[in-house]
């Protein structure tokens, strides 16, 4: 693969699908939560961590993957899931706790499982690292292809699991990529406050791994770095820490006013510049770009309608799926 016009158009499309999804979820989230805010209220209860601003990460990395590759993501999974091809209707339904959801309403937005596209996510920080490495090991033992990727934040890179798993990946030379999404913040704590080095990608040398850093939040650059990391992993060259500077436009979670962010640290939306770039490069016309946006919005609107129209699970279904039979 290379950075063809088709690929770039598709990355743009994935970014817009993700944005449309999150914007729709944000809209639903606030239903029932004003004037009195409470996590429990409304059709979309619980915590909600949206991906607005991070769409280039999902689009750029996933464009470099094959069907065989495996992903674990974290508490902010939408942009990765959507770019990976997780069914947006069933994902929307899951966020609303509906029976038609990916996990029949058992999971919620932090627990997105879609084995048909080798996607999983979970809500404990850095929890996805080890399972992803284990998936890579499984494939090796099964003599099947597949690179495993874990997506996490720069805050998660200070968890012990980061170290343990990267060392194991280094020792076993597993096909594994640790995608560190550096959006500058872990909740209200800045990377500078939380991290003893400027770039987590530089920590790769502690594990005999490669490090890649992309500063631009531009899917083209992210795709190319990811493609290099994938080529290394597929050819037995070992793992990569792929750190991607990105953005967190909608706050840590819904309800976060971000008063702690100084004005000079305000983050830019990556979508308009990428659109402008593709138009300037002749990859898209303005009309095509509009059409992509409209299609994304329409697709998500339909997904939301599907989710809203779906029934809730019955109360007693809570007792199903505790154990595999």
């Amino acid at each position, binding site marked *: 693969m290379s950075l063809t016009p088709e690929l770039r158009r598709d990355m743009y499309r994935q970014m817009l699908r993700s944005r449309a999804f999150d914007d729709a979820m944000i809209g639903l989230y606030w239903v029932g939560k004003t004037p*009195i*805010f*409470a*996590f*429990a*209220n409304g059709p979309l*209860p*619980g*915590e909600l961590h949206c991906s607005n601003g991070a769409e280039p990460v999902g689009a750029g990395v996933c464009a470099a993957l094959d069907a065989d590759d495996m992903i674990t993501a974290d508490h902010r999974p939408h942009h990765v899931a959507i770019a990976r091809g997780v069914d947006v209707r069933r994902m929307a339904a899951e966020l609303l*706790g*509906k029976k038609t*959801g990916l*996990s029949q*309403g*058992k*999971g*919620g937005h*932090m*627990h997105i499982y879609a084995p048909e596209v080798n996607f999983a996510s*979970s*809500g*404990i*920080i*850095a929890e996805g690292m080890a399972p992803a490495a284990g998936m890579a090991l499984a494939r090796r033992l099964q003599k099947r292809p597949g690179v495993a990727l874990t997506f996490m934040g720069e*805050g*998660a890179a*200070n*968890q*012990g*699991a980061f170290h343990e798993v990267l060392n194991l990946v280094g020792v076993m030379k597993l096909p594994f990529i640790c995608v560190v999404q550096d959006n500058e913040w*872990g*909740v*209200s*704590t800045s990377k500078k*406050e*939380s*991290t003893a080095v400027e770039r987590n990608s530089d920590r790769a040398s502690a594990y005999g791994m490669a490090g890649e850093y992309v500063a631009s939040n531009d899917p083209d650059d992210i795709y190319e770095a990811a493609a290099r990391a994938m080529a290394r992993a597929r050819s037995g060259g070992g793992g990569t820490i792929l750190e991607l500077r990105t953005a967190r436009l909608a706050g840590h979670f819904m*309800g976060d006013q971000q*008063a*702690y962010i100084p004005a000079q640290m305000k983050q830019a939306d990556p979508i308009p510049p990428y659109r402008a770039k593709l138009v300037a490069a002749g990859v898209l016309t303005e009309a095509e770009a509009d059409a992509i946006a409209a299609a994304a919005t329409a697709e998500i609107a339909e997904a939301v309608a599907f989710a809203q129209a779906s029934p*809730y*699970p*019955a*109360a*007693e*279904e*809570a*007792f199903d799926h*505790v154990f595999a039979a």
Partner: protein
Amino acid sequence: MSRILTMARAGREALDWEMERRSEIFVLGEDVYNFGGIFGTADGFGAKYGADRVINTPISETGFIGMAAGAAMAGMHPVIDLAYIDFIGVCYNVLLNTASKTHYMSAGQVKVPMTLMIGTGGGYNNAAQHSQCLHATVAHIPGVKVVYPSNAYDAKGMMHTSLRDENFVIYLTHKGTAGVGWMGTPIKTTLSEVPEEPYTVPFGKIAVTREGTDVTLIGLGMSVHECLKAAVDLARDGISAQVVDLRSLAPLDRDGIFAAVSKTGRMVVADEDYLSYGVSGEVIASVVERDPRVLRAPPVRVCTPDIPIPFARPMEQHILPLAGRIADAARMICTRKTEQ
């Protein structure tokens, strides 16, 4: 002077009072500087006490809670904010083997005075990894005190007691009881009149939160309030329910529990933690190992069953030990004839 406070504000007041006077106390945890901790227990402390005494940490729970233990061994009294008890998985060794056992393993040479504040519980659709109670898991560790205020008066008094205790204290608060902004309108029965002056509430004493003669409803954290709701409901049926708030899991007030249950001869234990190997079994065993004959009917447990917490509201509400289930259980044992 009468003031009605939330648990969060009451706990904050105690911490503030102690911090003003004792330089060995400092606060650390994720987002404590800007957010003041999960329950706002350190709200505004960043500005007041500075970044030295209100330390924002990386997401490194083993690291910073272990550091707190070391600082305690070296003469400080750290107060740690670990937002959700679901996160104990990444730092459990510090609780299990370091902070709780050092005093004993050193035969008293080393003290580990520190207070670990943790939020528990669900009921707001935050799913399997952010809704657990797990209080039995921490209370099973020897060498740790585990307290669990459920109203503002106790929140303040037990915070003072914690900060004056020379041991490792885990101070639990059910998220739904604290009265913080993100959980909606505070539950009425969590609010109390709170004296401005400092006072302590002793560990290891139950509180009888409501008097009653027919059945004893025993709860902790959020379940106390569900028991109180159930008691109101039962009163309409002519059943007089006594409500007991355990308040402290370690030490556990076995005398108090036995006395309360003896009074009515019937007990329902309501616990939002998982049923098996938890508080409910312990409380029942504590009564019957003294004398099973005080029970005029089988004890009943109303708990979260042994399943991960589902996200969707209909399922989650179904499995939580809410007032309806508690009242039903009480009605069942009050009306059922026993042949004893």
